[in-house]
């Protein structure tokens, strides 16, 4: 998995690409979120447009990060899901947990 961090105002954009799977990408997500929180960035957007594959470990890590960010008083939102990743979130009802956006500017504005 590859990643890139950038900020739009107070919002941290975390761009992910490649595979988010057990033993590699799943751990990396946690590190990226911890790094963002340590930098004082509590409003975070995960841009998943470049993610080709995600497994239950990757999904589980996203859920864990959602919980961590929420407990810190922040928000974790998802941007640009592929149809496959959307399906994976749908079947486990997680689509009801995450705020999901197709447009980055709209996602950033949603933090208010």
């Amino acid at each position, binding site marked *: 998995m590859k990643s890139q961090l950038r900020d739009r105002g107070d919002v941290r954009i975390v761009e992910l690409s490649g595979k988010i799977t057990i033993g590699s990408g799943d751990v990396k997500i946690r590190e990226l979120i911890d790094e963002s929180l340590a930098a004082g960035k509590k409003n975070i957007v995960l841009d998943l447009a470049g993610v080709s594959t995600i497994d239950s470990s990757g999904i589980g890590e996203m859920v864990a990060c959602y919980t961590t960010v929420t407990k810190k008083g922040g928000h974790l939102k998802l941007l640009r899901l592929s149809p496959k990743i959307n399906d994976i979130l749908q*079947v486990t009802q997680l689509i009801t947990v995450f705020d999901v956006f197709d447009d980055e500017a709209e996602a950033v504005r949603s933090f208010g």
Partner: protein
Amino acid sequence: MLASRFENIEVAERALHDLCATAGCDGDQLYWVVTALREAMANAVRHGNRLQPERKVHVDLSVDPGAVTIRIDDEGEGFDPSRIPDPTQPENLLRPSGRGIFYMQQFMNHVQFSRAPGGGTSVLMVKNLQPTTRSADDEEPTSRSR
């Protein structure tokens, strides 16, 4: 037969890709079958064999024009899949784990757990292949017949 390392999930995936290519299984069908294989392999490596490389994961893949059949055996202590809580229940939505078997059951037509010959867990999964492959992204796994 593969050592219990996460890297070997990629080895099994490549083998499945190669086999499926010969049977016309591609696009959406291949994507979801590979997803199920990865979940079964991950369970065998992490939960079954507890990441002990000397314990092996036995992988049996077969593809014919009508179906893909996958059998994964581990050398662990075995487990009762009925004890895994339903990850879609509201009280379980924020659990960080417990979705792998659910995904396998969603994406394959048949998933059966049994005791492996050595005492570990054996999972048999079958995906019935559609006669025509639809274009990517237009098929909802939730709406498939099982």
